[in-house]
């Protein structure tokens, strides 16, 4: 019996190896292209960055498990965003879900949001403009936003480092976001 099992493991691995590598490359590119966006998307529904990452990992992992039917997915991007959205809604308290998320307006807004961020952003001078706009922010806003955008820290980590609450971090980021939008739209 042990011999039989070993035999299967070995022969199976050599057959699988080549495919495995190819699949790995494909999934690596999925991570590069979609992971962060899917996380931002999930976090904006859940208000929780850790849970958002967990859900996105799960969704991609499910795709890996079903990779035999990968080719039947017509639009990968909309498949991923849709799965993440459904998973998020499922984890949210039922009562909240009904009143807030199951209305058509929300669904339509989400699909416009996805369309606007789906593809890699155009490489124009937007990043540069953004960079200089960030410099004009009030001190606290700038500090919080830089930690989040440039150092890639989570809201929770920023809160710990600055010794303020997560809510305060969120408030500062929202404020920074509002101010940046105004500055950037004036420049046009």
């Amino acid at each position, binding site marked *: *019996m042990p011999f039989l*099992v070993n035999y*299967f*493991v070995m022969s*199976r691995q050599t057959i699988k190896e080549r495919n495995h590598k190819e699949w790995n490359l494909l*999934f*690596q590119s999925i*991570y*590069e292209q979609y*992971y*962060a*966006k899917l*996380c*931002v998307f999930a*976090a*904006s*529904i859940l*208000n929780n*960055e850790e849970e958002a*990452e967990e859900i*996105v*990992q799960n969704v*991609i*992992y499910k795709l890996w*498990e079903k990779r035999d039917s990968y080719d039947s997915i017509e639009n990968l991007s909309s498949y991923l965003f849709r799965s993440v959205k459904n998973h998020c809604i499922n984890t949210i308290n039922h009562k909240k879900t009904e*009143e*807030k998320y199951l*209305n058509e*307006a*929300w669904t*339509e*807004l989400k699909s*416009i*949001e996805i*369309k*606007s*961020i789906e593809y890699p*952003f155009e490489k124009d001078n*937007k*990043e540069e403009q*953004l960079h200089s706009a960030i410099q004009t922010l009030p001190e606290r806003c700038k500090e919080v*936003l830089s930690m*989040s*955008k*440039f*150092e*890639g*820290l*989570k*809201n929770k980590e920023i809160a710990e480092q600055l010794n303020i609450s997560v809510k305060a971090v969120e408030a500062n*980021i*929202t404020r*920074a*976001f*509002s101010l*940046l*939008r*105004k500055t*950037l*739209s004036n420049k046009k």
Partner: protein
Amino acid sequence: MNTNELIDKYLTNEATAEEHKALLQYIHESEENKKEFSDACQLWYSLHSNKFNNTKAFEKFTKQTKAKTISLWQKLSAAAAVATIIIITCFSIFNKQEINNITIANNEKYTKAVTLPDGSAIFLHKNSSVTYPEQFASNNRTISITGNVFCEITRNESAPFTLTSNKLSINVLGTSFQVNTIDSTYVIVESGKVKVTHENQSVTLEKGQRTDLRNSKLTSSENTDLNFLSWKTGILQFRNTTLPKVFSDISRHYNCEFTINNDCTGIATTSLTGSYQDLKIDQVLQMIEMAIPEFHYEIHNNEIIVSTNK
């Protein structure tokens, strides 16, 4: 509210359903508005995406897929082992006489009585079931149940009686007791002695005692619930019982719900003594209203509305 605020609220997940509608309407008004919304989304994503490190996430992912490939083979070898055991069991079963199991479920409102091959009686409350062999073995009697049942077990010391539910296992010699597994899990003994086991803990109960399974722990106490068997006996008894408890016993017995109007003060401190046998619910409520005229009862289908009598 201006649209900037609406967009902020939407992206920070603070907007209400109404605000979602307003924002959507604004977007549909013109291409320019739509562009404004798209730009805001892009900015929001560009401010936040660096927090999520795709390289690290991908490393985690590859670890997971590798682990799964190995465990698939572990599973396969385990499956092979299980298959062998099943084959062996099949052989041993075929060598023995085949014993059929009988399952009786009660989906009706009324109590159903089932007599087991040894003469023991099982009373099934609504949504309950019992599974037992066509014929008991000579040295043990084993049945399984779901829901809420009352058992009167015939005494037979050479063949101990065992009852199992999804969480509990109960060993008895000869006795009568009630097992409930709906909502809360408990066992109440009416006569005799039983041993209740949950995982690796067990308690022995005697007449008038009960044990409750809460947070995976068995807690025993004296039973103070006079009406635990009302569904079987048809008798509701109250001895200086406060009205909230009276209502909860009535609602369990008749499968109805009480709604208490805000004007009913003093319900919690009013108590009732009385015994009601095989009555309809409106008769019981009439009699309670005669005993305690302060409160009035109105029946709407399954709902009973309690208000103050003026």
